[in-house]
């Protein structure tokens, strides 16, 4: 996984709340068996509308999504994160995230930054006044800067550290393999196994 540090890019306002993962990527695209190439599927339903923000300049080339509260709720599909990443988004800013979406983002190097709702609205206003505005999301400093405005964001320390170091989860866990084996030795025999019965 690539290291994440300071991200600067065109901010894309998505002024809706409760954007669930079905809207980020409809179920029909989940049939693919690859882990990349989902850029065409991002917000597929909404992108059919020429007025949708990603169909308009200068937002087409955006890399920082500024969304309403409760972004990424609903289904656990990690494809939502792949689609955002493949499209070119590096960070999503919102006042609240769906838990699974937030977890998935951290694992794929997509920065899910939680801002105060009032700050999101300020950034929307700034973009409104200056479409194409570039914002800077500074992970070491945990701040977002848009024009003259600098506001803090929240991210849990562990995810932040892993993003900064670009660390792969499985490798980290396997450092504790001896303890996993030891735990397995203590498991009670009534616990289920899936081996066929009879």
């Amino acid at each position, binding site marked *: 996984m690539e290291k994440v540090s300071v991200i600067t890019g065109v901010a894309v306002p998505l002024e809706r709340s409760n954007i669930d993962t079905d809207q980020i990527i409809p179920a029909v695209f989940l049939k693919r068996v690859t882990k990349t190439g989902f850029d065409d599927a991002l917000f597929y339903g909404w992108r059919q509308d020429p007025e949708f923000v990603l169909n308009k300049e200068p937002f087409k080339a955006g890399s920082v999504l500024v969304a309403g509260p409760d972004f990424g709720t609903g289904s656990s599909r990690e494809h939502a994160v792949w689609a955002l990443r493949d499209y070119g988004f590096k960070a999503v800013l919102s006042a609240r995230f769906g838990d699974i979406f937030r977890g998935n983002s951290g694992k794929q190097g997509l920065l899910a930054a939680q801002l105060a709702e009032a700050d999101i609205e300020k950034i929307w206003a700034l973009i409104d006044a200056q479409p194409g505005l570039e914002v800077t999301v500074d992970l070491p400093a945990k701040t977002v800067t848009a024009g003259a405005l600098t506001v803090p964001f929240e991210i849990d320390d562990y995810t932040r550290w892993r993003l900064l170091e670009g660390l792969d989860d499985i490798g980290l866990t396997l450092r504790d393999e001896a303890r*996993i084996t030891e735990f397995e030795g203590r498991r009670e025999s009534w616990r289920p196994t899936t081996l066929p019965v009879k």
Partner: protein
Amino acid sequence: MTISDSPVHRGKTLAEKVWEDHLVVKGEDGTPDLIYIDLHLVHEVTSPQAFDGLRVAGRPVRRPDLTIATEDHNTPTAAIDKPIADLTSRTQIETLRRNAKEFGIRLHSLGDVEQGIVHVVGPQLGLTMPGITVVCGDSHTSTHGAFGAMAFGIGTSEVEHVMATQTLPLKAFKTMAITVEGELRPGVTAKDIILAVIAKISTGGGQGYVLEYRGSAIRSLSMEGRMTICNMSIEAGARAGMVAPDETTFEYLKGRPHAPEGDDWDAAVEYWKTLRTDDDAVFDAEVFLDANELEPFVTWGTNPGQGVSLSQPVPDPSVIIDPNERAAAERALEYMALEAGTPMKDIAVDTVFIGSCTNSRIEDLRAAADIVRGRTKAENVRVMVVPGSARVRIEAEAEGLDKVFKDFGADWRFAGCSMCLGMNPDQLEPGERCASTSNRNFEGRQGKGGRTHLVSPLVAAATAVRGTLSSPWDLAIDDARLVNAGPSTGSGNGGI
């Protein structure tokens, strides 16, 4: 933790107990805990990239004996002996078959007697049991919490992580008690409880929490009813839902293929009986609901929190104070093509779908069959009944339920996710309106442009009879028939 660490010594919640029993490594300084996973359920949609990741890294599946796979999301529910017509669906299924073989994982394929929706298959085999941790690359894994298991949905990276290590690094969840006291009226079911809970706390209200459902109304539910409730915990934003195990749980489990036997059974039950929230435990949040007041419930919008009692009209967005929610409600009504003030019961539907991991178990089918028995469906309504697993289908046929549904005019299908999501051939046409026993009414969830009203199997059945959204109370049905169809008696199962 020693007692002196905290000023007030307090007991533990059910969730905390299960969590602590699975600690492999306790996290320090903000690092997550490493939690052992007892059971990993796999299906075709969220697994291919995980298997791919293992292959790239040259890693095996650590515990194939704690892993089981089934085909459900993409499978057709008719003509299942023919090759799957949709090429991408077929590729996904064939990829799972190849991966299961290569990595040595037990798989129940289309046509197999144990095939079905992953969340129906686990409990039915007796794999889901109290005090275990269950994960699956599917948000409705929360279903399994009905047994007092800690069960939650994970993303594909986590699927790969569990395959490789049989553990997950996780931060402890907060706990929320949802207490439902009282007695449900005949015709009101577990589905109405959970729809009312979500309407009350909203789709974000459970975020970061494990919900523990408690109170007399929950205790009197069958396992099927408890699964329906836990299933939809995710629709309130929660990671998981749980119900403390009791005699109902043990009764359901005993004798199932994977349930413990002999001394193991005794040891397990002894432990399971300790799995309840201590009287002096403290929840991070609490919610109360009065079961006596509940009526059959229905959603009017495009998220599961947008629901009302069936006796109510479509709500008026202009009275909603929160601007975001008001805008969401306005957009929802536009998508749903509904006018504020229209009585919910005047809304005509095109399709009725009885199925999905929320409501496709044998008890759900019995409840619906009790309503439609001896009746004929409304003329312009298409009615689909889709058992959750091949086993449920066989059981239903042995009881003659297939005949009840067919005589009614319904389409009796093979097992799978079916019309719950637009991924297999069972889909709504654009603009079509559906009363559905599934769990999500998102825009386009059941097919592009489709409009979904979430309901209980009883409401679905009554709606199929009348052609408009209907409560079983709208039919001339004596209470006895409703009680039999209701949740608290074990539904013709001989009671508890």
